[in-house]
Each structure stands twice: as C-alpha cells, then as structure tokens.
C-alpha cells in the first residue's frame, strides 16, 4: 500500500526514454479535442498513452493551447492515478490489490512479476520498458487475482501463468498477444470476452434474460415526456448505484429546470471494491444501456450525453465505441432518432483515469468537465445545475437498463417484482470465499442466507454487503433481506470465510479510503488516516479499552463533517464491524499497565539519536557503562 504513489520514488526515475516530445505533436493532440479545456482528461490520457508521462514542458504547451494556466493542467494531471508526471514504462503492469485478490494469492503473483522483471512494486525499470504497481480493485473480483497490462486485462493469475506472461513481455511480446495470438483479428466483443469472463450465474427476467431490441425506445418515442416520467415513477425504480434515489423524480426534476441544454450522464465508474455488475452489463447489454439513456434524453429533452467509463475498464472502450457507432448508423443515435423529427441525441464515451471518488456524481461531473475529480458542494444538485451548470441526469448503468425495460414491459410488470419499496431485480456481484462467484440477477427481498446458499457460500463467517462503504454482517444477521430498507447494496456481495481476519479486512478497506480520498476536506483526508492507524493499533495488540470509544467518536466526526459521500461512508467498515463483530475487538484490547502506553517504544524512539550521538542512553540503557 505504501507504494501506491511510488512511481515517483521507486529507485531513480529513468530519464524520459520516449523520443523528446515535440510541441507540434502536443498541439495536434490538443487540436484533435478542439483545444477544449473541458476535454482535458482526454488530452492528458492521450499524452500519457503516447509518451508514458506528462512532462513539465508538455503541460506548459497544453496550458497554452487550451487557454488555461499551467497549474490548472498540473492539477488535473496529478489528480488521477493513471496519469503520471514522471516517466512510466512502455508496458505498465497494474496488479489489482483488492482484499479479495490478496486472499486469492496476489502476493505470490506479485513476487513472480518482481522476480522476472527485476523491479519492485512501484518501480520502473531503468531501460523504461516496464513499470510495476498496485492498483485498487479493477472490478475482476470474481476472477482474482487480476492485473492490467497497459489496456489489456489478465485474470485468474497463478504464479505459473504470471511467470509465462512476464517472461513473454520481457521477451518483447505485445501485451495483447498474451490473451490471444490473433488478437487483432478478433472483433471488439470477442476481445473483451476473451480477456474477461462474464460469469453470469443467474439471469433474471429483467436484465440478463432475453431482451428484445429497442422495444422500450419504440414505445418512448410515441409517448409524451410526462407519460414517461409517470411510467418510471409508477414502476418504483430506484437508482442502482447505491444511494437509491427515485429515478422518475430525478428525471422530472431535471426536465422541469428551464435551461438552454440538458445532459444525460451514465455513471459507469464502478469503483466500489467487489462490484463488477456494470462490467457485465456493458459487455452483454450495451444496447439496452444506450437505449435507456436515449429514453432519458427523450424525456428530459437532452441532446448530449456522456458514458463515463472508469479508467480500469478501458478494455471495453472499443467494444462500446462500436456499439455507439452501430447505433448512429442505424439511426438510433444522432439526428432524428427513429425518424422522429427533432429527436436528436448523441453520446460521447468519456474515459476516467483511476479515481474512485469519480463515482460520486459531483466528482464525476467535475471529471467530465476536464477538472480534477473533486465533488461539488450540494445543493445545487446536478439535476438543477450539473455539467457546466446545466441540469444533468446522472444514473447508474443498471438504472438506465431497467428504465429501458420498464418502457418496454410497463410499470406494473416491474412493480410486481421485488418487495414493497424495493421493486424489480438487482444485479449482485458475488465474490470471495464461495464456490460460484459471479453475477446473480435476483428480485429484491432475498435474505443473505438464501443468496449464500445459491452461491455456495454457506460456510461464510461474514459478508460485506455493498462493498466497504456498505455493511459488514456476521452470521447472526444472515436472515436480513437485501432491500433498500434493510441491507442496501450497490451490488457488491463479498463473502468471507471463517479463516479470514476481520481486522485485516477493515484495515485494508481503510487504507483504500485513505488512498482514494480526494483530499479536499480535512475530516476525510486526515480522519481516515487516523482511523487506519487506530485499527493498526488493534491489530498489533496495543489497543486499550478506551480506543473503542475513540473509533466511534472519530468515525462520527468524519461522517458528520465530510463534504461528499466518500467521507460520509468511509468509517462504515469500522462502525459496522464494531457493531456486528464486537468480540473481534474486545478480544485484542487490554488496559495499559500503570497508565503507560504500549504503543510508545522508547527504544526505537531513541535509536536514531543513539547513532547520531554515538553513545548509549543514560536513562534507558541498562549497560550504559559498558
């Protein structure tokens, strides 16, 4: 974890091995994006891809072309973890460092890469050929351990497969050749499925069962916006990203806002560790998603939309671009959609660059605007003032897919599934200690135990529902139901067996939040570090009884005073385990002896001074005179 930012301090950085960056080439890249400062992320991504780093001189040039200051460009370049100010290797290997990957044998795989490439985690080889680093969850927990090699994804790594991949790369083989010899001849869809398995274990009626093409859109073009809102509202559809806001109301709010333009944004920045349902929808149901977005555009009156794809899912880019292109060709996107005069809507694929916080809708909008992915102050809400100040609907991938299906089959059909208050089905992405990790489309209302029986995980000791920002529950809560009112989830369902150390999991999740905090507000930037340190104290057996109170108090402060959802939920791993696994904590605490703290070690505290002064301690070294 300490090596996360280590691109900068891993050994001596090699001098920029790429050819010197010419101003004209940079100008061309800026030109390609219309010298538009709102396309900054695209510009920087392209510069990074081409030159493996964003050099200071480059930033000056980009600033000049886009009419920004240098520091604004650097603000963006330094924010995203897939952009780097120092040179990265021509092949950058990012090992997914999620807790599930760790339990699945990440360590051995990492050692193999270090061994074969001759560099440590966080380092770049002196010849500029390779960089090796850890990255948080890349959405492959059902086939862990996984890694990204440039834009290629490798899954189910074993020490053996890692060795052959690393050796092939070292011998100069292109990363895509590891996946398939004739990679170039495959269609984009084939490439995607060759790299990553869908692992659909249970297809429900709404999303993953048979879906007729564009049936919802055909109905929508015949309906008034008001009728569409009513239908979505009556269906009871709520946002599937985690917050669960009523979708119909969101659309209605945005439409009622008088403005020159409206925007539709699909949030495919699926960053919550253990969540990978959108990955499967983007692979298998991209048309349904775009259909849903188009319906939303029809209802709200938007002419432009974005599909914000997380940087880790870059391997889906070609596939999605092809889908968009195909729909434009068939008159399902662009001007006069389905022959309806004045129904114009098009979608741009916006790629992220490795920032969890961009899944927060305000941060996501900032990112689309070409800014660092920092959340915005609410209110105003995006439906009132979102992208560039225009009313904007931001919905999750799954929500748009549901909306398209509701327009096809009607509100009643959707409303009848699930439970009161939680209608329809939910995609669960199940991973961890179970027999059949993968995607399960289930109506709301199943108990945790029922799901565990389905996935072959009845041995579980703990389940993390909704990812780290959700709830960690113990066996005594397995009767609880997966609904918005009981256990809400954005999709993650991580199973942990009895052999797993709860405190290790909690510490990992806290280190994740420490890494992903955008740093804007102090409670989140600093508070999460303190929480992580406090958990370390528990793990090392130095915690006192009053430290439990400290954990609760600090968590409360972070939740109450943070600016966005990240800080409001980041103490959840601590709070929910304190509540549901009290014995795990009480087993490791002990009162301090004589009121003296065990955590303070005088010997290590004076060790540096001993060496500088070249003498022993008069007070604390017994053999001072020797």
């Amino acid at each position, binding site marked *: 974890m300490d090596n996360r930012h280590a691109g900068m301090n891993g050994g001596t950085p090699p001098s920029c091995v790429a050819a010197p960056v010419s101003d004209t080439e940079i100008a061309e890249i800026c030109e390609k994006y219309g010298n538009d400062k709102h396309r900054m992320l695209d510009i920087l991504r392209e510069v990074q891809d081409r030159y493996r780093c964003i050099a200071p001189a480059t930033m000056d040039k980009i600033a000049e072309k886009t009419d920004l200051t240098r520091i604004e460009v650097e603000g963006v370049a330094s924010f995203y973890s897939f952009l780097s100010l120092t040179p990265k290797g021509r092949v950058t290997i990012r090992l997914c460092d999620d807790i599930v990957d760790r339990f699945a044998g990440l360590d051995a795989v990492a050692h193999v890469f270090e061994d074969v490439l001759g560099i440590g985690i966080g380092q770049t080889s002196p010849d500029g050929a390779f960089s090796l680093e850890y990255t948080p969850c890349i959405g492959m927990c059902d086939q862990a351990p996984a890694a990204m090699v440039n834009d290629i994804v490798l899954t189910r790594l074993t020490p053996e497969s890692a060795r052959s991949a690393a050796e092939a790369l070292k011998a100069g083989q292109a990363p895509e050749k590891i996946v398939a010899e004739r990679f170039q001849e495959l269609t984009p869809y084939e490439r995607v499925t060759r790299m990553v398995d869908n692992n659909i274990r249970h297809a429900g009626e709404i999303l993953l069962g048979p879906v007729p093409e564009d049936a919802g859109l055909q109905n929508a073009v015949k309906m008034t916006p008001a009728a569409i809102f009513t239908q979505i509202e009556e269906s009871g559809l709520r946002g599937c990203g985690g917050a669960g806001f009523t979708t119909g109301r969101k659309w209605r709010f945005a439409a009622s806002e008088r403005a020159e333009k409206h925007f539709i944004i699909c949030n495919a920045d699926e960053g919550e560790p253990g969540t990978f349902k959108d990955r499967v929808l983007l692979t298998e149901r991209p048309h349904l998603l775009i259909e849903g977005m188009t319906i939303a555009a029809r209802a709200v009156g938007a002419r432009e939309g974005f599909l914000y794809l997380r940087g880790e899912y870059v391997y889906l880019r070609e596939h999605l671009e092809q889908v968009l292109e195909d729909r434009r060709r068939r008159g399902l996107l662009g001007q006069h959609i389905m022959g309806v005069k004045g129904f114009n809507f098009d979608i741009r694929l916006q790629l992220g660059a490795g920032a969890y916080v961009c899944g927060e809708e305000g941060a996501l909008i900032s990112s689309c605007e070409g800014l660092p992915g920092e959340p915005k102050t609410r209110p105003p809400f995006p439906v009132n003032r979102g992208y560039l100040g225009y009313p904007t609907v931001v919905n999750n991938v799954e929500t748009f897919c549901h909306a398209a299906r509701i327009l096809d089959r009607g509100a009643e059909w959707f409303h009848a599934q699930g439970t009161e208050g939680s209608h329809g089905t939910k995609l669960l992405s199940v991973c961890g200690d179970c027999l059949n990790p993968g995607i399960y489309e289930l109506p709301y209302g199943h108990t945790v135990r029922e799901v565990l029986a389905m996935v072959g995980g009845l041995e579980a000791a703990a389940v993390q529902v909704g990812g780290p920002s959700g709830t960690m529950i113990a066996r005594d809560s397995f009767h609880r139901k997966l609904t918005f009112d009981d256990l809400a989830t954005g999709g993650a369902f991580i199973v942990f067996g009895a052999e797993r150390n709860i405190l290790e999991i909690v510490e990992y999740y806290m280190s994740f939040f420490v890494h992903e905090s955008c740093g804007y507000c102090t409670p989140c930037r600093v508070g999460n570090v303190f929480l992580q340190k406090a958990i370390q104290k528990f793990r090392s057996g130095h915690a*006192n009884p009053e430290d439990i109170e400290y954990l609760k108090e600090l968590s409360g402060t972070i939740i109450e005073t943070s600016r966005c959802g990240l800080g409001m939920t980041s103490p959840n791993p601590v709070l929910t385990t304190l509540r549901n696994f009290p014995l795990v904590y009480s087993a490791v605490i002990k009162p*301090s002896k*004589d*009121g*003296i*703290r065990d*955590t*303070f070690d*005088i010997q*290590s*505290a*004076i*060790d*540096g*001074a*001993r060496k*500088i*002064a*070249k*003498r022993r*301690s*008069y*007070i*604390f070294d017994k053999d001072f005179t020797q």
Partner: protein
Amino acid sequence: MSELPKARIATASLAGCFGCHMAILDIDERLIELMKLVDVDRSPLTDKKQFTQRCDIGIIEGGCCNEENVHVLYDFRRNCDVLVALGQCAIMGGLPAMRNAIMHSDAPLRECLDEAYITGKYIRNTTHQVPNDPALPLLLDEVYPCSQVVEIDYQIPGCAPSGDIIFDTLAKLLTGRFRGFEREMIKFD
C-alpha cells in the same frame, strides 16, 4: 474552614517554553485561595526535583522531545492519581513538533540537527558541530504529545491557557466538580 487534608499537586515542564507555568502564575491573587487547598510537591515552582510522596494531581506542560521528558512523564504517571496535560505542546506536541514535518528524508533527525547547528543560514556556531555532551539527553525520533506516551486524564487547551481556565479547572478538579469546559473558555477566535 475545616481542617481537610490538603491535596498535593506536582508540575513539570517538558518540551515546552515554560509559558504554561507562567500562565499558572497568571491566576494572580487567587493563588492564595489555591494554596489553602493544596500543597505543591515536585515542581519547578518549588524547585523540588523528586516526589516526596504520592500526589493527587500532576500537571504537565510540553510534549516529549527527548528521553528525559519520557522519564519524567513516566515518573509523574506512576506518582500521580490524575494527570493533566496543560497547553497545546502537552496536548498536541505544539511548536516543537514542527520538526515532525521533516518527513521526506532518510534521516530526519540528522537533518534537523544539521539545520539547527551547522547549515542553517543564521547559525553562528564556531565549533561547526552538533552539541554532544554526555549529560545531554538523547532526542526522540519525533516529538510526541503526552497522550501517546502515557494515559492522560484531562487536557486544558490554550497556548498558553489563560489563568482563568487554569484556576477554574483546578478548583473544580480538587472539589470533584469538573464537568468539562464552558464553551466561552475554549473559544479562541
């Protein structure tokens, strides 16, 4: 006045500027009132270097920057029923803890000493050496707030805390009436 046994208090100044001890004197004529309630044991104010007997309250100014500070603090913890951290240095490390900010160095302590005694722009040190008399206590790797070294029962904030808050808190602690601070007393803006 009834002949209740007087409480015993002790004070120490660790890595601080002695300002908090001066602030104790800021309670002015109320000192007379206080002295009716307490005897002062080990303290720079009495110049007693050792505890003569167990104390009810120990008052600590300053954090821990060297081994002697730790030694004294341990001594206070063992000999006092209640330990009070007085002022920001004792509570948070305060100004001395600025050296904790030297983080991106392989040898932060060495860097700090060099800057202070050898390379600093305004240093006049004809020996060009870091002082290293055997009587000098060894420095700690960083400056620690008291609560990281021992358990602290109460903290009186301020830099330095006002005479009012010191008197008020002590008087209440001695009579068992302390229930936290009035908002006005810890509002600094």
